[in-house]
């Protein structure tokens, strides 16, 4: 057997192991139901519930920010993030939160907001 073959086998073997392990890092794009079933960190895609309160009061605690989202099954849950409120948060429509469910609230370690594109709702500012 050639050295190249041994190395190829080694690389393939390591590769498969690593890939399997990498896939373990991936989860399903979940909803709150899935998040509660797994109990692990998951990503939940949802819409910001604009009728619910958005709390960020740096006077009380600069590291506490909470809001509500509805997942794709319209399940409403409170989301907490231990960080300041991102800019333009209220404008966002779709939100992807990463974290896990603790009791009935979702503890997010990361939030990704999708704001309506700058040019979609075309408005031309006119000179006054």
């Amino acid at each position, binding site marked *: 057997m*050639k*050295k*190249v073959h041994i*190395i190829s086998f080694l*690389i393939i073997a*390591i*590769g498969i192991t*690593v*890939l399997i392990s*990498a*896939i373990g*890092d*991936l*989860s*399903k*794009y*979940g909803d709150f139901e899935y998040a509660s079933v797994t109990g692990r*960190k*998951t*990503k939940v*895609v949802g819409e910001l519930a604009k009728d619910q309160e958005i709390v*960020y*009061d*740096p*006077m009380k*605690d*600069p*590291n*506490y920010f909470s809001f509500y989202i509805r997942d794709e099954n319209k399940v409403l849950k409170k989301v907490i993030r*231990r*960080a*300041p*409120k991102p*800019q*333009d948060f209220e404008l966002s429509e779709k939100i*992807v939160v*990463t*974290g896990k469910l*603790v009791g009935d609230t979702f503890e997010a*370690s*990361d939030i*990704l907001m*999708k704001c309506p*594109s*700058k*040019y979609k709702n*075309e408005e*031309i*500012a*006119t*000179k006054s």
Partner: protein
Amino acid sequence: MQESIQYIGEHIYLAHLGQYAIFLSFASAILTALSFWQVDKPSEKIQANNWIKIGKIAWWTHCLSLWSLIGLLFFIMIQHYYEFHYVWQHVSDDLPMKYIFSAFWEGQEGSFLLWLFWHAVLGTVLLYNRHKYKYTGLAVLGLIQAMILSMILGVYVPGLEWKIGSNPFVFIRDVMNIPLFNNPNYITLIKGNGLNPLLQNYWMTIHPPTLFLGFASTAIPYAFAIAGLRLRDHKGWLAPAFGWVLFAGAILGLGILMGGAWAYEALSFGGYWAWDPVENMSLVPWLILLAGLHTHLIAKNTPYSLKSAYVFYLLSFVLVVYSTFLTRSGVLGDTSVHSFTEMGLEWQLIIFILLFGLGAIYFYWKNKESISTPKEEESLFSREFWMFIGSMVFLFSCLLISFTTSIPVFNKIISGIGWILNTDLKDWHRSTPVDPVAHHNRFQLWVGVLLSLLSIVAMLLKYRMDTNPFKNKSWVIRIVIGLISAVILHIGICYWINVDAWQHHLLLFSGVFAICMHFILFLKNFQSKIQYLGSYFSHIGFGILIVGVIASGLNKRFISSNPFITRGLIADQTEDELAKNIRLDKNMPMYMSGFLVEYQKDTFAGVTRTFDIHFKKLSEDGEKTVEEFTVQPNILYSKDFTKIAASNPSTKHYWNKDIFTHIASLPTDQVSIEEATRKNESIVYDDILVSKDKWVSYQDSILIKLDKVKYDPENHDLNRNKGDFGISADVWVKFKDSVYSHKPLVMAKEGLLLNMNDHNNQIGLNIRVNEKSLAQILAPTEGPNIHSTKLRPNEVITWEGRNIQFLGFSKNISNPHFKPNADDIVLGANILVGDGAVIDTIKPLYIIRGNQPFSIADHNFKHGINIKLTGIDIPSESALLEFYPIDVDPKEISMQVARVEPKFDFVVLQAIEFPGINLVWAGSLLMLFGLAIGIFKKNKRKNQIE
């Protein structure tokens, strides 16, 4: 409907010119490709010279039309021709000229043009190289140019509902359909959208051109590889291509590094690398290029690895195109913060990838039999063997990064299959890792270890060596010295930074070992010319980079936490999440992580608000100040001050660490004007007449007395422009034996009344000047001792010690407090007022707007007079005037007061210490320097041959 309108002021000929230039550039790129391709066809040997001539003309036509269309786009942007959609989108009147480049490549079309520009430059250099691969190479480049140009072609395919490309010269009214375009004169009405404030910094000026030059330069090794395969001359291209590869490696690496530096220096990410998909997909082609570079070296010096070199170079450019697809198609939507918005170019980009991917596979497959591979294997003691393994590690690293980054693409493909099978395969969709940084670091750590160790082994050995080097005593001694110095250095570093896990120790050691070993080898070969030492520099740089990554990444420390204050306040907060941000009240110093930190002041300049945050480190007994410094993070409000547009960090640099700070948040009423207005409007003020002579009481407990009324006061929060005027009331406020001084003011600024109240935090009191006092000066209606008169031109009158002369009427009106409408009739009276010593001009206005006359008075505080023009007596050309005296030192003034909750001025601060961050930059730069000096080596050798 719109077609019938004759629009005024549009530069239609420029739009046509731009469109023609795009077509010409596109067509000549195709002609370049076709003619240069013919040159190397065996059947066309006789005609080859003609094809070269045609190809050269086509190439120059392509370049010149491309450069002119770039120039044209710059021109319309500099001229602010807002009828063009691209200009309107990216430029605004108030955008400083220095950001015109940034605005140019902010959009997709502009950045495609930047890419095209560099290809054209590189291709032109290639055209004047002296080797036989350039014609096929330029043919490939021509096709690449045509593909990219098709992205900005902007033509509709008749019959199909499909638009090819997006033209930067399209008019705004062709993109949007809004009632504004019923106005033939719409151009005078529109304002530009302008450049995103986040991108208004010098990084946006220098990073994209460097990165795109890097991307563009990967096309050259691709072109060489295709030429080598097609001509079946597999060894010949290695020498002329080598300099290009080094150039591509150095520039693309620099571009990526600049991206990291930008993220760290100017954005509030709090780091230089976040394993974001956009970052990953610029890193992957570079790593593949480096793999190619290493196999290229093997192929140059031995009979091995030629096939790998081909594959890597072909792959590198295809990955650049793939990365373009990922960032521009919108497919990353859910996973990346900084991808472009969708523009409907997905399918064009997919065709681009497939064309160059399948093309590469075709040429490789067709010609691979002719690539000779030696029967015998590489020796275990040869450099080429370990270098080859190293290249495989590069490949492996890229596969992993690309796999994770491509998950959104896999999801799309799964959806596509589901659509074909008519079933919902959504259950098969996967998300990207919940913690991408941990995910990638876990694997790439081993890549770092392997690459450092392999680089050492390879550099210790020589090409084509097959004797056991362990028999060589000095060789073994070198390794032993290297190991010992590495162990000492490693222990030393562990005194400086905390390294916990064994994996991190392993990575640190391999990095340190690489530094020591390559340094020893560098010393051994020190006599060589510097150009031949590039690999030592690069490998030492890599080792330093590893140490820097460990130091700054593992030992990154949040200074902005004060666990004694925050612990226990929040239910079920885990230790790890304890406050990374801290509330810092103005002028209230606070201890955090060994520093006494104080938010000292904030200053406004335009829309930028800069905060002075003072850090003071005390000696252990707390007596002496060891060191102190001030950082100045700032925030940018949007143009209309309605919200915060960007938060720019400020970093204190030391030689061994950085302290990075940024403003994470502000009090809610300072975050948005809406919030502030809502809060302010809910306050109910009480009118109160404040006097100089006596204390007036408010709510029984508060006493207020007037000190002095000042006209045209200065206030550090307001920039007073010419024509602005205001009144401030300096008052004393007495509450429970304490007396406070307050100076609220009201100001007329460009027709707006700005009421700057003063706030007393101890009492919880807002106090402001009644706006009526100022309104009374702009449009007086009542008052004691009014004098009405009628003056003919040049008539002089004396009124209460002032000489007043009416000079005449003028139609030239410039009054900052009045903006005339189009059909207004405006008349101004020029009046001189003098007291014997000083003479000033006063210009009251008389306006007729839609049959309704009204007046705007003008005043002079020095002379204490306000004059209103109430009408005109046409037969005698006289002005009807009213004089209102202004009390220069009034005894009392109408003010407004309200009790409010005490307000706190504070910032939410994030401060992070990054130890050893300079090692990251130094290591990376050394690595790129090593690549760059190799370019000169190649040139020198070529000069010798010629």
